[in-house]
């Protein structure tokens, strides 16, 4: 599958990264990792790109890394739809102290707007 993974630096996006990279290693997905700006985190995008690169090397997965500017949700949807991706993968949400799942704003926008399938990684 041609997979577009959005990573903004939140903990759920980082666990999605390892899961999707593992999956790509196992089944040979054609993976693009989009580094997006998540206003809810303070990770710099350069640090994030370096971290993604390390994960890919460790798993020996060949993937494209792209740094995306502008509104993360709408940019991910536009790229996935215009470039023939099969699926957008994203972190599936954080947990509140109570253990309630709280879906992030980027994921909510993508779920409601994408015509490409969406994979929320839990």
């Amino acid at each position: 599958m041609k997979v577009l993974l959005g990573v903004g630096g939140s903990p759920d996006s980082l666990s999605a990264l390892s899961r999707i990279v593992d999956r790509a290693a196992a089944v040979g997905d054609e993976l693009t990792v989009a580094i997006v700006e998540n206003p809810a985190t303070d990770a710099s995008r350069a640090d994030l790109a370096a971290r993604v690169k390390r994960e890919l090397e460790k798993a020996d997965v060949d993937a494209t890394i792209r740094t995306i500017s502008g509104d993360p949700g709408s940019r991910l949807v536009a790229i996935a739809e215009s470039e023939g991706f099969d699926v957008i993968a994203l972190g599936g949400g954080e947990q509140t102290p109570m253990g309630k799942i709280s879906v992030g704003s980027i994921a909510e926008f993508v779920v409601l707007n994408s015509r490409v399938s969406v994979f929320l990684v839990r």
Partner: protein
Amino acid sequence: MSEERPYPDEPAGPFPSPPATFTDRSGREIELRCLDAASDPEAEAASLADMYERFDPADRAQGIPPTGRDRIERWLSTLFVAEAVNVLAWHDDVVAGHATLVPDGEGAVELAIFVHQDYQRAGIGWHLIQHLLGEGAERGVERVWLTVERWNDAAIGLYREVGFERTGADRFETEMTIRIA
């Protein structure tokens, strides 16, 4: 979830605190008690896990309660921390409902409430949440927040009635806050 949350300026309440007994709208005698006041907290915690094991998954809220005894017990253990408040509604020796305040590590607490399907629409949630807030206030809690799926009108109505206000941070879930001291 850690962004600055607005709270109402004025405290709501005062709220009553447990223990308390009332008759629900189906004529059942319901008793409200704090879990940590129990003579046998482990047995009461097991009765609470029983309630969640029988809980209809259609009424799950954002992934809780989980399904399966193991997951339920693991989840409950995260609610049984030192500064948490847990109030149980008892009908004889069966748990009918549970309301909880869990510290968020940032000076406020998160609230959740569940009433078992056999006991819903009987006014138990209303008594339970008031006594939970009363107990919280007695233990020094000032700010309480919660999230609720934004299509859950029954729950949102209950929260508004006790004094919660929407913060405007609406996603799939609506966020609401209250000040109780």
